[in-house]
């Protein structure tokens, strides 16, 4: 597994970080202050979570005056999408097996 995929999985393993990422995906760009109000935890704690999300490239940021604005980068979810594509192949194969089993058993 690539280093970046590892970062993505680790970043999303935490429920607070998932909530922050989801908030940015749903509502668009936000400042640390706005994110802190919603997360219900201290600003340093939010900043720490944002650092982990940035390392995974799940969020991007830009400075405007004294505020830093954060936005979601859903493209970074690609490792998760790959994972799901593998499950797709897995289940299609299992459906084939299930279908041939149904042919073999009575009733």
């Amino acid at each position, binding site marked *: *597994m690539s280093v970046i*995929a*590892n970062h993505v*999985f*680790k970043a*999303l*393993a*935490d*429920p607070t970080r*998932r*909530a922050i*990422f*989801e908030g940015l*995906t*749903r509502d668009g760009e936000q400042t640390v202050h706005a994110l802190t109000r919603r997360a219900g935890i201290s600003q340093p704690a939010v900043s720490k979570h944002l650092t982990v999300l940035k390392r995974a490239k799940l969020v991007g940021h830009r400075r405007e005056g004294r505020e830093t604005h954060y936005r*979601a980068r*859903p493209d970074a*979810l690609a*490792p*998760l*999408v*790959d*994972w*799901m594509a*593998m*499950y*797709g*192949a*897995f*289940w*299609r*194969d*299992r*459906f084939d*097996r*299930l*279908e*041939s*089993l*149904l042919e073999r*058993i009575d*009733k």
Partner: protein
Amino acid sequence: MTDTAAVRSVVVEREMAHRPEKVWRALTEGQLIEQWLMANDFQPVAGHRFTLRTSPVPGWNGIIECEVLVVEPNTRLAYSWGTMGMESAVTWTLTPTAGGTHLRMEQSGFKPDQEANYKGATYGWRRFIGNMERVLGELD
């Protein structure tokens, strides 16, 4: 909480030329499950914890940890699905049709497990899928 990672899902659907009662048996009788999915200690009882087991491959122990979530005979079956540090839930829906059963499988709620060590996990799974596809390829 809605969750971007969680709302993504894998859906596979197929028309089966068999009655829902028969499809249900294949989904819920351990000995039959083993023949199309994996060795297991499944029981059709909500709250029952079970494992699905296949041969280990490098990077994956071949074990999937599950818990039965929903049992609605001949209609709906759901269980959690945890392996390699990734959690999700698998839901089967059976709808009677003129020719048999419309069978739908949805695997959703993908999220990394907090305890897990992800390194190499995908590799093992990829090997597992890769082997499977190779075997299927040889059958052609």
